[in-house]
């Protein structure tokens, strides 16, 4: 019998496959990552870190995770985020830039537009006036042309047209060289086929804004030309969902999971103490219970991002509903390289060992935390159940719930299949080792004389 090594490896992988597929029936914990408002960290950085936290929680603790800036926004609104201030600064910088150009102050125009561009990175999706986007780039282009930088001017015009493909520069208002440069940029951009970006949301029916311009309600397909774009998805009763698209070609599909708005006021006391204090007092604990109940979560991970020079810091704290545990806050330096965030976040998440203590996994046995919201489920919902505190205290002294009943046959018991798994893996590794160590399959030539 002759079998090639790749074939044997494939056989081995196939053999191990069932081991990783049979545990899907078990309930998973549901964890909500609640980001605290952060005014000095770029939204894209926040998105990256929050996504990395969610990914690592799923991988390391086999949990369902709700994360993202939308969660923070559902709770805090724009409180403390600096978004409103950034939006005002952006509008004001663009307006100052326009004014400077009209006074023939070219350098000042470029400076103001550069500052506006910086603010736009924070607040782009929040801007509701679509004309500001094109003004920013049109006046930057005019200033570039005044400095004789035609190439750069065409690039600015291209971005302006990308925001507003219907943009026109009147020959009566602008000199011929400006109109020519603009026409060239417009021709270049519109000669390419726009990407049809399909935008869906859950729940559907949300209003979609791109670069401040309404595009209809989800599900919707929007043609987008290459360039920087800002997406905002809004639905009454849900936190606005925002996304800043990169400068190059847009994606073909955008999915927005809308997070319901926190019905109470922003828990400001919690915000002040989430990372700062060692132990929570009862008011903060009560707020955490309410938040966990609202999100139907077994645990909350409080995440606070801050910027110190070039370094990004992550403060993290864990609150578990059952048994109630609030860990102390820990601060981690994620460094300055966004490429290394994922690796460092993996280390950070690995410190949240208390998540393994979560009991009552039936709370989040739905794939979509919002699709099957049922107030009658046995989730702890402070405020809805007058006896909730009493019940929780009573449950705390119960022995841990058994996930499996005692009548489970031996061949379905975890210990049996752990042993089998161990034997299989050990056998596979041994077989592979023997395979690799044994000499190559060989043959012997015998030379004999004819009879």
């Amino acid at each position, binding site marked *: 019998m002759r079998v090639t090594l790749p074939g044997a490896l494939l056989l081995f992988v196939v*053999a191990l496959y069932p081991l990783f597929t049979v545990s899907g029936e078990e309930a998973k914990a549901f964890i909500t990552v609640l980001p605290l408002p952060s005014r000095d960290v770029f939204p894209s950085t926040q998105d990256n870190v929050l996504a990395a936290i969610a990914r690592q929680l799923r991988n390391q603790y086999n949990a369902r995770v709700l994360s993202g800036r939308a969660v923070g926004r559902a709770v805090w609104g724009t409180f403390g985020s600096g978004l409103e201030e950034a939006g005002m600064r952006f509008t004001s910088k663009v307006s100052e830039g326009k004014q400077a150009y009209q006074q023939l102050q070219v350098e000042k125009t470029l400076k103001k537009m550069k500052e506006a561009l910086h603010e736009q990175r924070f607040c782009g999706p929040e801007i509701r006036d679509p004309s500001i986007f094109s003004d920013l780039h049109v006046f930057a282009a005019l200033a570039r042309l005044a400095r004789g930088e035609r190439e750069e001017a065409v690039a600015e015009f291209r971005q302006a047209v990308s925001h507003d493909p219907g943009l026109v520069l009147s020959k009566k208002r602008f000199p011929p060289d400006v109109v020519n440069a603009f026409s060239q940029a417009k021709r270049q951009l519109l000669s390419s086929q726009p990407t049809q970006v399909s935008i869906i949301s859950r729940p559907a029916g949300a209003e979609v804004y791109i670069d401040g311009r309404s595009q209809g309600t989800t599900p919707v397909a929007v043609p987008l030309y290459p360039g920087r774009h800002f997406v905002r998805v809004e639905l009454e009763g849900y936190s606005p969902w925002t996304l800043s698209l990169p400068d190059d070609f847009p994606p073909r599909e955008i999915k927005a999971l809308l997070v319901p708005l926190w019905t109470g006021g922003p828990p400001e006391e919690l915000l002040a103490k989430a990372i700062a204090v060692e132990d929570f007092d009862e008011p903060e604990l009560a707020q955490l219970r309410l938040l966990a109940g609202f999100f139907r979560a077994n645990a909350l991970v409080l995440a606070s991002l801050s910027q110190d020079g070039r370094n990004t810091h992550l403060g993290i704290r864990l609150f578990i509903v059952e048994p109630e545990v609030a860990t102390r806050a820990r601060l981690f330096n994620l460094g300055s390289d966004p490429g290394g965030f994922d690796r460092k976040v993996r280390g950070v998440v690995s410190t949240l060992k208390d998540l393994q203590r979560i009991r009552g996994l039936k709370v989040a046995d739905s794939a979509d935390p919002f699709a099957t919201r049922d107030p009658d489920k046995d989730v702890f919902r402070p405020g809805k159940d007058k006896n909730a505190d009493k019940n929780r205290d009573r449950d705390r002294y119960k022995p841990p719930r058994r996930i499996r009943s005692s009548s489970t046959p031996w061949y379905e018991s975890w210990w049996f299949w752990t042993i089998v798994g161990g034997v299989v893996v050990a056998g596979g590794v041994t077989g592979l080792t023997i395979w690799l160590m044994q000499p190559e399959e060989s043959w012997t030539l015998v030379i004999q004389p004819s009879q």
Partner: protein
Amino acid sequence: MNPAAFKKAVCVILTSGFIAVGCGGDVREAVLTIRQGENLPCLGVRRIKVTVFKDESSGKSEEVFGEFYRGDGSCNLPAGLPTDVAGLSYAGEMSITVEGFDSSLDRRMCLGTKQVTREGVESGDLGEMDLNRESVDDGGTPTYPTGTLKILPLPGIADIESMDTLSFIINAGLTGSINGRFVTDPEVSLSDTTLVLSSLLPRDPPNSLVVVAYYKNVRVGMWENTSSFAIGDMFTEVGMSKEQD
């Protein structure tokens, strides 16, 4: 059995199969039969070298020493055979070469080649191969010269303590002189063995033969033929005497 248990049972069975396959290894044996070809292929052959090439540039070889010729020039192939070349690896293209030499290092008398396939090896029988004499170009005409010198044991060679090379020259200084080095059977002493030089064109007397022993490029012994001899059609015995340094 529930689906989960079934999947796991399948996993165990497949993995056991993997281990069984992983532990197994085949070592096969394939037989190649060689036959005497045309033109007295074994005349003067003292050494057979079998090489199996798994590609054009690398191969594994085995050498067999023995007196493969008979007085009439026909083969005495059973001498030293059968022999085997073990530990050969499989390759897409494999070829087998059997070469016959006289007592010299590189004077090849005869040759046989055969291409083999993996399937052939697995069948255990590689068929037959003809060992044919190689021709010598004698002024544009391919010929099969049969002149063979049987050099009788070199006197006093057993007394030489160290020697790493034993070279020869036939008709030194004359047109058509031949020189080279001897390769001898490592299991037979030079004082007992008869050295053979074959595939020589016939030549009338006088002919001369000088054999020199070296150790690290220093001459440690020299022999010359005791009397003049002719190189004839078949065997000529040449007696040697040791020269004093």
